């Protein structure tokens, strides 16, 4: 017989871990965005990927 409580507890624990991991990712994403803005220079623009042609210095 399956112990539903244990299964539910495991599911909640997994979900909590996922939420914590995504929250950590969100903090990292914001930090990376801030770092990107702080360190971005204008001399990188000629080497882009698929959309390289867009990023043209004015």
């Amino acid at each position, binding site marked *: 017989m399956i112990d539903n409580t244990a299964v539910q507890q495991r599911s909640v624990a997994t979900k909590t871990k*996922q939420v914590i*991991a*995504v929250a950590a*990712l*969100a903090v990292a*994403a*914001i930090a*990376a*965005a801030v*770092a*990107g*803005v702080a*360190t*971005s*220079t*204008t001399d*990188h*623009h*000629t*080497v*882009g*990927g*698929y*959309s*390289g*042609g*867009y*990023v*043209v*210095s*004015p």
Partner: protein
Amino acid sequence: MDWPVVSALWNAVIQPFRLLLSTDLDVGSMFYPFLLVAMVWAYRREPREESLLSYVTFWRALRSPSGTLDIRFYFTNIALMTFLYAYSDSWYRQVPQLVESGWAWLLHEPRIHLLHGGFLASTLVTVLVFVAADLSFFLFHMIMHRVSWLWEFHKIHHSATELNPLTSFRAHPVQLYLTTTAGIVFSGVILGTAGYFSAGTVRVLSWLGSNVLVLGSGAFLLAALRHSHVWIHFGPLLNRIFYSPAHHQIHHSGDRANYDANYGGLLALWDWMAGTLIVPGRERRIYYGLGDAEQNNQYTNITMLYIRPFVNLWTRIRNKHLTPPSAPTAPE
């Protein structure tokens, strides 16, 4: 060893990392918060077997053979392109000046002060530069699909069987050089013309050296998710104006009928006008790649990505068989 060469080599090595902290539409870190919010929203919209963490980190795609090749090619290709550009990009900056000189020669006036460099004129020029860059992307993308020898170079981009943002850089140097040049020439014509008729007083509205409209649309249209499993589009009406990640995922489908559709970059308007628009609908699983395993298997390592277009071209020239990929084919 000559110091400029050492400096160019060093720049080439660090450029793949610098690009992550740049305004690049596909991997630039300033877009990460937008992307994360969009991905969490997309994840919760449908029941999925994949965990949220795996979904938002492109884990499945990055661990696939296609994804690991994308990672290795990203570092190799960006370094190579940066090294090559170190010796060839100076003329890019001269395109607007050349256009200005062209106008001066045509009208026998060094400059004409017709436009005055206020906010309105600058906004107009900013919009025009954005539209020019997007139109050039659309046209050259379509040409790469329809001109058989260019398709051989573009094929490596379509050989990805799993999409992740680094797939954007799975592009042959020949393709990158042509599309980047096209964007710069199209934008340069607008910039040079605006410069001439405003006596140099009009400026493109920019942030961190990039057109604000390009940056804004890159963020709000989620450009980095075009090469991903994240199916997001903007609804029946806006899908005809703006290009969503789902538009591009359809374009990458291994189904040959979709090769000739959704060529746009940030605006779907061009596709709509050209009759090449496939409007995204409900989320569906798409199988990416060139349609059959035999073709996909021609592009499984870095050397093949660089060399295969030349080998295929040579084979096709020898066999006198140059059929554009998007030419209508009879159902098999």
